[in-house]
């Protein structure tokens, strides 16, 4: 609480008011982004030999917990850019690795374009295609849906189908890194939504874009295994953010419950108010313990054989956070319903119960893979 924050400073101008302000104005949090970039805070997971900080995943998660309890969902940008940088570090060609300095300092923004309107959660059914040309280049056409920050991205990691003949359905996907140098062949359409107002969402169409082989991230046709590993890290990182968001709302509600007097006593003296807050704190604390255990497993290499662990953590954290934010809103009453921090967190967290992984798919995964129950899908 009283130590240095994620910027390495004792106090920071980036707090709940900043989060509320940029969300209200529907702005990209430019100053926040720059502050992180100036300190190379987007290269935390990049290896030292490639100029990054090379911190452990456990340490990364601590940064997220701290940051998200102050700026809430803005932490998404920090998570996404760090994980993108790590992908370039782990899987990038010489060409892609040469982008690392600009990525780690935030001079260039990277985003992933995977989902498509018809594919939804079934990522393997995407239709965007890349066909090889005679000179070894690829030509990509297709449409992507719900791409976060799409138009602001300098590099888009686009997943496309490159073959159908693989023996497994998960074979045949390749990720290409597209720069925005072909503007007339890329079209963006902004999508309006109910929350996450600091984070624009786009549908994007690609019309015969030419990409060289040096821009392939990872092994051609084998992108799924690379992406699955990143998704595991992404789920844990986002879980940390949910816990921070829950704690952020909860501390506002606690403060209010201690001071606000109705019927001659503090509202926090009522069990109807205090028990849901206690319960929220207990559940957020359990989420954190569960998350930290999983982060240690990532660092120890044990996560490979426990791919369902991040699913469980994600499910637990998003629910604990949602309940904490909801109980906080109830505590604040009408004052929480007015435009402000808590109602924004309330609308933001709702998204994460559906994506990047829905609660239902998380449960299916635990039911089928961990408990060995029969599947209902094909």
């Amino acid at each position, binding site marked *: 609480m009283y130590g240095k924050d994620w910027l390495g400073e004792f106090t920071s101008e980036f707090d709940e008011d900043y989060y509320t302000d940029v969300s209200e104005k529907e702005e990209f949090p430019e100053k926040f982004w720059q502050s992180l970039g100036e300190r190379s805070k987007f290269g935390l997971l990049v290896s030292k030999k490639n100029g990054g900080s090379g911190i452990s995943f456990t340490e990364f998660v601590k940064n997220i917990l701290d940051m998200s309890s102050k700026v809430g969902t803005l932490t998404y940008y920090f998570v996404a850019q760090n994980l993108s940088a790590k992908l370039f570090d782990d899987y990038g060609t010489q060409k892609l690795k040469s982008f690392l300095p600009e990525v780690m300092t935030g001079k260039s923004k990277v985003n992933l374009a995977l989902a498509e309107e018809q594919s939804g959660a079934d990522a393997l059914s995407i239709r965007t295609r890349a066909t090889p040309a005679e000179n070894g280049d690829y030509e990509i056409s297709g449409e992507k849906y719900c791409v976060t920050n799409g138009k602001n991205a300098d590099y888009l990691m686009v997943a496309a189908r490159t073959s159908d003949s693989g023996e497994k359905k998960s074979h045949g996907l390749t990720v290409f890194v597209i720069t925005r140098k072909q503007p007339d062949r890329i079209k963006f359409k902004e999508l309006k939504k109910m929350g996450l107002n600091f984070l624009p969402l786009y549908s994007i169409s690609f019309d015969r874009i030419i990409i060289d082989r040096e821009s392939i991230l990872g092994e051609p046709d084998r992108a799924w295994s690379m992406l699955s590993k990143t998704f595991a890290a992404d789920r844990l990182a986002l879980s940390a953010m949910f816990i921070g968001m829950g704690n952020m709302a909860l501390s506002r509600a*606690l403060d209010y*419950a*201690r001071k606000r007097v109705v019927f001659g*006593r*503090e509202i*926090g*003296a*009522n*069990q109807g108010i*205090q*028990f849901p*807050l*206690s*319960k929220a*704190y*207990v*559940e957020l*604390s*359990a*989420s954190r*313990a*569960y998350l*930290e*255990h999983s982060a240690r497993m990532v660092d120890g290499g044990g996560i490979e054989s426990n791919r369902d662990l991040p699913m*469980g953590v994600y*499910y*637990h954290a998003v629910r604990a956070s949602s309940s904490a934010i909801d109980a906080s809103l109830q505590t604040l009453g009408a004052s929480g319903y007015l435009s402000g921090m808590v109602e924004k967190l309330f609308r933001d967290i709702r998204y994460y119960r559906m994506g990047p992984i829905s609660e*239902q798919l*998380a*449960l*299916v*995964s*635990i*039911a089928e893979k*961990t*408990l*060995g*129950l*029969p*599947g*209902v899908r094909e």
Partner: protein
Amino acid sequence: MLDTIISYINQGTGKFDTHYWVEKDKKAEFPGEFLEVIRNLGLTTLLLPEEYGGSGLSVSDYVKIVRHTSSLHGVAAGDLIMAHNVFGAFSISSLGSEKQKEKLLPRIARNEVISSIAITEPNAGTDTLNISTRADRSNGEFILSGRKIWITMAHISDLMLVLAKTTKEKTRSTKGMTLFAINPKEHSGITTSRIDDIALRSLGSCEVFFDNVTISEDDILGEEGEGWRALTGILNLERLSTASISLGTGELVLNSATQYAKDRTLFGKQLGANQSIQFPLAHGKIMLEASWRMIEEAARKRDAGEDGMFEANAAAYLSASSACALADHSMQVFGGMAFSVDMGIELHWRNLRLFRVGPVPEQMTLSLIARHSLGLPPSF
């Protein structure tokens, strides 16, 4: 070492099947055969320091064994391990005088003692400061009078920790209460009466009457007037134990229900292929995982000598509520079969329900956390 103990538990206790526990529960009969086996495996002296002939296990390892044994045999088995280790081995070795240690620890090491703790009273359930059992000084001795309730295994206990008021002042302070360690079999004036209840029927829960029982100054455990402080460490370990018993038994019902959901076919497909059946099981699994990490954190803090009050209470609360929800869903998965006592499902459903009420009701835990961890004003 832990792996070795666990494999011994698997080998040594395999013969105590569902039928055994169901029969013991039906007849309200003590599981003496099981106790004999776990005594020989050393499970009753896990927290007894090595110098006294125990295993001297860390709390972090102890909770793993409680969890594992409960996941095979349920609440009664876990409770037996807790009573021996927490109210016997731990309490005497950490709080006992040299004289008490000399007298009791060899007997505990030789497994001659069944331990119990007597705090709760008919008029002072959770409100411990309001107890009316008294121990008054008289000619260098104490005269103990009063009545306790819900004392597990009191009727067969050789070592009972009894909390009594030792001050004459009418006070609600934590001072003035003293903890005594007595052997009820060595005193006249102590009678027990079994309560016909719905949980832990094989172990038995009792009312205990103390009618002018003469006890000695040497029976004080810890310091006179400091019973509350003495209890803190014991009750914290009790929370961690009940958390691990709940968790282990939660795993037991999860495993049974999952297996049944795979084996049972309805409308031409496996019962477990229905999301309405599998989602609550998957949800329960996740809740148990998170609860276990909380237990581990509380145990780590305790081993490190840090204050883990919040963690232990949170762990007990979460484990009990998660395991109860799973047991309830298991009743749903087994359908009509769950209502057959011989299936052994309702046994766990009944037993697990206990931990949402005792040793501390959920409401008290939430209230404690609200006040002490979140700084909210008192609600009563």
